[in-house]
């Protein structure tokens, strides 16, 4: 135990002195701080998602081939597209086309009937809503006129048209619209943390082996303490990094609370409930451990640093697969059949079950079962990893094939009895 503590402390302090590690943490802290402080300094006062993603034409030309009240359309558009300049021009398609191509106007509309029109634009932007608003304007001219023909009074018309539907929400499961953002963020963090720290562990093991430090270590320390010290050292470093980054984010959010009041997305991220934070910690810890055990064991078989990535590739692929499945399921239905299976399989359950808890409807017994399977598998893989590591770190030459490895494991068991 004393040995384990010594190794753990040495590994942990190694991360704290590692420039890459410290640099990464500082950068993450700065990025979140800059983002969360940005509304204080931006001119609009509040950073609003709607402003950022939606745009419309600044200058519009209107013309008509038929008998049509362009003035009415213009005034309706002026309300809908506030700030845009609307100009009525003579109906000359060639001249309007020229105006658009030369940039004099963004949008040329030629009315062909009260409910149809042709428009000329340079490019059709992805987030451009001009077309949608013009349709609205046409309807707002057409509908009252038609009602009036039928003899309905103007007040009644505006009353009918401005009717609103009211709804009252009672969501039994999770509100996916608010859980999406933070689940997404936590999933990304879980994924990157597991891959990154797993690789740190793998590199560390392989470096010790290839530099023959292992031969010195193994003469005074037990291989099991070496492996667990290394993995938990990395885990502790990772956890402190996450706590620093998330803690800093929470602090910056609190300091700027008033600026974020209207932002649904950001508020939903910081408004997640404590239960979910506890699950995050649990799945982080178990996910990290189970993957790091595998990374450590596989890296112990590499004699050269170059072999590490090839050896650990299968494990990384499983993680990528679990990540992709979860990400795609998040867009549609997190409780689909594949996700249900994945949420019990120990290598995919950290991401899959976590996401189902956050966004879907999972009975409590399923959560308990999934965690139990994951916990037992982590312990079993830990044992297996320690056995492989013990043999692997002293095997030189080409990475062994599976049958050679199992023979070595059996021999080791016999000789250690």
């Amino acid at each position: 135990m004393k040995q384990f503590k010594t190794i753990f402390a040495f590994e942990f302090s190694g991360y704290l002195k590692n420039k890459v590690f410290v640099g990464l943490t500082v950068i993450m802290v700065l990025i979140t701080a800059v983002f969360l402080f940005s509304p204080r300094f931006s001119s609009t006062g509040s950073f609003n998602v709607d402003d950022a993603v939606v745009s419309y034409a600044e200058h519009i030309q209107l013309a008509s081939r038929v008998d049509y009240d362009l003035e009415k359309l213009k005034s309706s558009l002026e309300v809908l597209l506030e700030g845009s300049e609307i100009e009525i021009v003579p109906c000359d398609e060639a001249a309007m086309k020229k105006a658009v191509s030369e940039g004099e106007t963004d949008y040329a509309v030629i009315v062909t009937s009260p409910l149809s029109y042709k428009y000329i634009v340079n490019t059709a932007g992805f987030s451009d809503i001009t077309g949608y608003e013009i349709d609205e304007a046409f309807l707002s001219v057409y509908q009252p006129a038609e009602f009036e023909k039928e003899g309905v009074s103007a007040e009644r018309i505006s009353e009918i048209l401005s009717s609103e539907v009211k709804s009252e929400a009672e969501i039994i499961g999770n509100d996916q619209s608010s859980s999406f953002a933070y689940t997404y963020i936590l999933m990304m963090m879980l994924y990157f943390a597991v891959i990154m720290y797993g690789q740190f562990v793998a590199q560390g093991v392989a470096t010790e082996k290839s530099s023959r430090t292992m031969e010195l270590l193994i003469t005074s320390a037990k291989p099991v303490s070496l492996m667990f010290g290394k993995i938990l050292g990395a885990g502790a470093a990772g956890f402190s990094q996450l706590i620093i980054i998330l803690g800093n984010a929470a602090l910056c959010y609190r300091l700027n609370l008033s600026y974020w009041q209207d932002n649904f997305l950001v508020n939903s991220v910081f408004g997640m409930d404590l239960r979910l934070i506890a699950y995050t910690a649990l799945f982080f810890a178990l996910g990290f451990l189970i993957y790091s055990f595998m990374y450590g064991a596989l890296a112990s078989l590499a004699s050269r640093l170059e072999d590490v990535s090839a050896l650990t590739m299968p494990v990384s692929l499983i993680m990528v697969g679990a990540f992709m499945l979860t990400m795609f399921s998040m867009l549609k239905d997190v409780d689909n059949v594949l996700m249900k299976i994945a949420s019990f399989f120990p290598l995919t359950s950290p991401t899959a079950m976590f996401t189902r808890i956050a966004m879907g409807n999972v009975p409590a017994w399923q959560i308990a079962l999934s965690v139990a399977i994951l916990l037992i598998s982590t312990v079993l893989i830990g044992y297996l990893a320690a056995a492989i590591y013990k043999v692997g770190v002293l095997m030189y030459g080409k990475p062994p094939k599976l049958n050679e490895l199992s023979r070595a494991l059996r021999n080791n068991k016999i000789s250690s009895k």
Partner: protein
Amino acid sequence: MKLSAQELTKSFGEKSVLRGVSFEAESGKALGLLGRNGAGKTTAIRIIMRVFSPDSGRVLLDGAPLDPNRVRIGYLPEERGLYPKRKILPQLIYFGALAGLNKREAEQNARSLLKRLSMEEYADKRLDTLSKGNQQKIQLVATLIADPDIVILDEPFSGLDPVNAMLLKDLIKELIGRNKIVLFSSHQMNYIEEFCDEIAILNTGKIVLSGSIAKIKRSFSRDTLIIESEALPRLKEQIDNLPDGLISSFEETEGRLLIKLTDSENKKELFNALGGSADLIDAFYIKEPSLNEIFVKYTEAAV
């Protein structure tokens, strides 16, 4: 204390590296493990260090199986093994702590050994910023930090300049003087001859020769004499006139006469025959084989 390896065998796959190797090392003495490249020296050392276990055979300390938890062993591996990217003092303390020292002792020992090897100024440097010879000295500090009872040095002199080699020599002599078991392997026979009382020559996985260097040397045929003199031409004349059957050949090399007797028993007769010229002779002695010659003879023949 007495460390003994008994009938060690070890193969890696098809290749058998050790085929029944035995040797002994005692406190206060140094044992030199000699052998050509690939003879099995490092494998034998790794077995003692429990880096891996032998296929058969035992390693005993005073008759009981060697238990690394009860006796401290310092090991200087041939391929150096420290953390290149970490600072020197912290990693020395780490190795000291793993060997069972507390942090304060480890730091004290590390500092005093660094001082001893005139390396104190590097304590806060990263290992990979040092030259090869200096890294070697740091490795030596890591080996000795826990004041081990058994010191195993695999090729300790490789990469050291003469001044550093001298520092290391003094350190090894001190270890022997402090009654430690010192086991070391080297290709450099002059160093072995300087420290080791006992040697074991390994060749293709077997011990081909072992015992005390002095005894081994005496066991070689004592039929070659060397005469040192200022007046070699006159002596040569006399030797030319010696009775037949006394010597088989003689030659002059490096200002000395090398005389091969037909039988080592003839030494006295030769001495008497040259007695009249005793005033011309500075030295008259048996030429013993050098360790180098012994090594080459045993390892070449067995190939």
